[in-house]
């Protein structure tokens, strides 16, 4: 059976400098049997007790991920989950894959080094709104623009959970928390807009409790070559309970959610009463479906090269979550960072064989005779 690593070896012709890693992997297969690519959800569970608060949205996301991952056909040992710090970032401990629970905000940087040097692995980042957008904001935007092959799951609960409830960079203005008794003053980020501004090649959004929608976005994200950012609305029932109720409640949810389906008209609301049309100034606006020509209604195209359309979509929603598009905003193909890096190494190798003695002696050496 060909494992992803074998395939990679075959494809690239494993260079000598990566050989010892490949050998170790091959040896483990010799000793432990073939890589197992048909997994069940339970194969991904660990013996560690899950320590989130009862009722936390993180549980449902964990379950969704564990149920969905086996369908990718990737062996457990070929998956790595790197997280930062926060409630959400405890995620790797509960996944029977390789994992690193790193430091606050730095997971994208660490995952980049891993993915760039081991392109055959499936590398995931799990992060929170504070982790990804406050302390780690710089790493996030640079990872996105580089298009490293990572899938980033951003658990947005619009609060700092682990530090017990301070407002976060996605909290709505005026948020009253322990650190903002008179209401927060700073304007929040819209993570999708931010990612699109950084030229992300894949950006999606899903709801923790919507197993089907979440799984659908996760699958597309996982299959994407390059950095995929998935913003997952996650309820923190302790410090920000009901933050997404407007969208979760079946009645209001239908009214305020704009489902994004590639190739389909952006019609939403009870009986499709609302729709998205061009606003004539380069952006988009909400209209009543019966007030516009059918041809005016925007057909969702996640593959547009120009990010402005996806950006305009992301700007439709307000801080209080009315008109929130859910699904895949953008999914385009660009070369990944590690593929380009591997190409450069390959070019260098074929151009000039690695000769250490030659390198050390250089062009201007001289010899002292005995």
């Amino acid at each position, binding site marked *: 059976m060909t494992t992803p690593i074998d395939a990679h070896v075959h494809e690239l012709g494993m260079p000598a*400098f990566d050989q010892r890693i490949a050998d170790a992997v091959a040896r483990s297969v010799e000793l432990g049997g073939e890589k197992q690519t048909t997994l069940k959800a339970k194969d991904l569970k660990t013996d560690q007790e899950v320590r989130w608060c009862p009722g936390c949205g993180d549980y449902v996301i964990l379950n969704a991920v564990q149920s969905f991952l086996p369908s990718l056909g990737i062996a457990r*040992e*070929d998956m790595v989950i790197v997280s930062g710090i926060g409630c959400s970032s405890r995620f790797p401990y509960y*996944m029977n894959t*390789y994992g690193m629970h790193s430091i606050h905000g730095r997971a994208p940087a660490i995952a980049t080094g891993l993915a*760039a040097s*081991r392109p055959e*692995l499936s590398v995931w980042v799990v992060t929170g709104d504070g982790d990804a957008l406050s302390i780690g904001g710089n790493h996030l935007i640079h990872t996105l623009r580089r298009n490293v092959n990572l899938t980033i799951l951003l658990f947005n609960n619009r609060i700092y959970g682990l530090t017990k409830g301070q407002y976060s960079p996605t909290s709505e203005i005026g948020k009253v928390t322990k650190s903002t008794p008179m209401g927060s003053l700073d304007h929040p980020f819209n993570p999708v807009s931010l990612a699109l501004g950084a030229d992300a090649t894949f950006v999606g959004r899903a709801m923790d409790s919507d197993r089907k929608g979440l799984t659908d976005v996760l699958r597309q994200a996982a299959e994407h070559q390059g950095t995929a950012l998935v913003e997952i609305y996650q309820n923190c029932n302790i410090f920000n309970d009901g933050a997404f109720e407007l969208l979760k409640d079946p009645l209001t949810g239908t009214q305020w959610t704009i489902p994004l389906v590639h190739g389909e008209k952006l019609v939403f609301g009870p009986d499709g009463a609302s729709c998205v049309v061009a606003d004539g100034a380069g952006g988009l606006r909400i209209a009543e479906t019966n007030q516009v020509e059918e041809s005016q209604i925007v057909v969702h195209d996640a593959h547009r090269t120009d990010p402005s359309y996806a950006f305009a979509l992301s700007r439709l929603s307000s801080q209080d979550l009315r008109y929130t598009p859910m699904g895949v905003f953008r999914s385009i193909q660009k070369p990944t960072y590690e593929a380009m890096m591997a190409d450069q190494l390959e070019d260098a*190798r074929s151009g000039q064989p690695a000769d250490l003695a030659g390198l*050390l002696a250089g062009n201007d050496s001289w010899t002292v005779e005995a």
Partner: protein
Amino acid sequence: MSESTPSTEPTTLTQASAPGGLVKSVVQLDRVVIRLAGDSGDGMQLTGNRFTSETASFGNDLSTLPNFPAEIRAPTGTLPGVSSFQLHFADHDIMTPGDAPDVLVVMNPAALKANIADLPGGGLLIADSDEFTARNLAKVGYAENPLEDGSLDGWQLVSVPLTSMTTDALAGSGLGKKEAERSKNMFTLGLLSWMYHRPTEGTIRFLERQFRKKPEIAAANIAAFRAGFNYGETTEAFAVSYEVKPAPMAPGTYRNISGNQALAYGLVAAGQRSGLPVFLGAYPITPASDVLHELSKHKAFGVRTYQAEDEIAGIGAALGASFGGALGITTTSGPGVALKGETIGLAVMTELPLVIVDVQRGGPSTGLPTKTEQSDLLQALFGRNGEAPVPVVAPRSPGDCFDAAIEACRIALTYRTPVFLLSDGYLANGAEPWAVPDVESLPDLRTEFATEPNGPDGEFLPYLRDPETLARPWAVPGTKGLQHRIGGLEKADGTGNISYDPANHDFMTRTRQAKIDGIAASLPPTEVDDPDGDATVAVIGWGSTYGPIGAACRRIRRSGRSIAQVHLRHLNPLPADLGDILRSYDRVVCPEMNLGQLSMLLRAKYLVDVQSHTQVRGLPFRAAELAAVLQDVIDGAATTADPVLSGGQS
């Protein structure tokens, strides 16, 4: 004068007749220190480097001291814009770039003003008279032209119109005046090459290579270089040329190498000798950037270089790569280390190999970006939260950066730990001849990856340690059956699971410390250089002060006194025999380019009354000054009854 034997009276060797019937004599010298000084735009560093290469290939021993401003182009002709390059070369083994120049070449009034105080009386001063215009003189506050007002009578002044001679020489080249003027550094190099009998083919080859795409520029520079050489041969201004014989060196292949280049080569070699891909995550910073530049050229060796968005991402990516089985490296200077601290702590906790290269510069804060200092020692040792021990290795000379880099990688890979490699600006940019090592003689750095479960019940225990090194297994993603999670939270012994257990934390903290302390067992006995064997005073240093301290010791010994020199490569852990060595001397002196960081450490650790001698001028110590300090200590030791452990520490 530098550390070497004060030159015997130069001997005139030959009376040679030059074209034009001039009789020129050749004088034999054992050593020369030349300083070239000009505007940042005058190409002094390039000229110095070329002269160095010529000198290296001629076979002299040499040592260099580039000194340039942090500004890329400070306003032309001003004092802050002065850039200089000092080269010491000799027919014997030397250790420093020289305390003061014997010859000073100044390309403009600012260069004269900034450097003349360093030229001892009677020294040779060559000035480009074309640049001593009223405007340039006024810029640096000369009311009169010093080349003409007699104020330089204390030196052997030779005024030469270097600029106009260059443009004259290039008259037919088709280049404009401004462009032609830019070759004046090559004219100067030609003149100096004649004066010191340097081989010229290397420079011509270099210019052809450098300007391959602009043959007319290559031709102009070569023409200027030759014109300068011929001018020396024919002018009456220089009646004497000098010969400095090659230095005796052990048989072998040599090359000229700078510290940053040697350091980068050491990292490439460590990758080859460990069989691991090298991954460098770095953010540009002076004086470390050249390591990034150099490593970026060596992709054929499997070196992946990643210019990150900041220092934190640089080290993060390196650590991520180490998790994946690469030899993770990050290069930076002091301010960058400050940013990397938290990730270094994570590397301590996750016990993964990682090398952090700190090419130190003057601090604090942005400090003196292009000047040297040794003031990050305590930051490297202690600049993290928690008990986070990290081994520290320091090179002693430019060429030694190669071996020190390999040693840092050896420790990182063997003990699965982050390691600091503490170079500095002086080593980074300084150069010396380097005996090219035989690749097969380099240490074998192969370490094993874990490939099967190690637990009693067939499980994998990521924190089950090697009993000898206390290193934990390195199981890379992709390895079947060894999936595990690591991170910054405290680990339970063995399993590596999160643990808040008090006894476990105490145990793990002590174990991490014991692992680093245990490295001392792998170190060779400390070398003590005491040729007379009867020294009562020892001088101890670390890093780039090796040259100046060694040169100072030679002076002391030449004056008939004894002194012992100890130079540390490992700052953490310190060698096991160091306490006994220090205690065996009446007095111990520790010169450092900081305010006494190592001496504080030694005093605290060994209760020895180490005397600190410090200087933070952004420049290496002068051997003569250091010798005077050591002399005073030796004299003091001879007259004090009980000199040991003064201050009631015993």
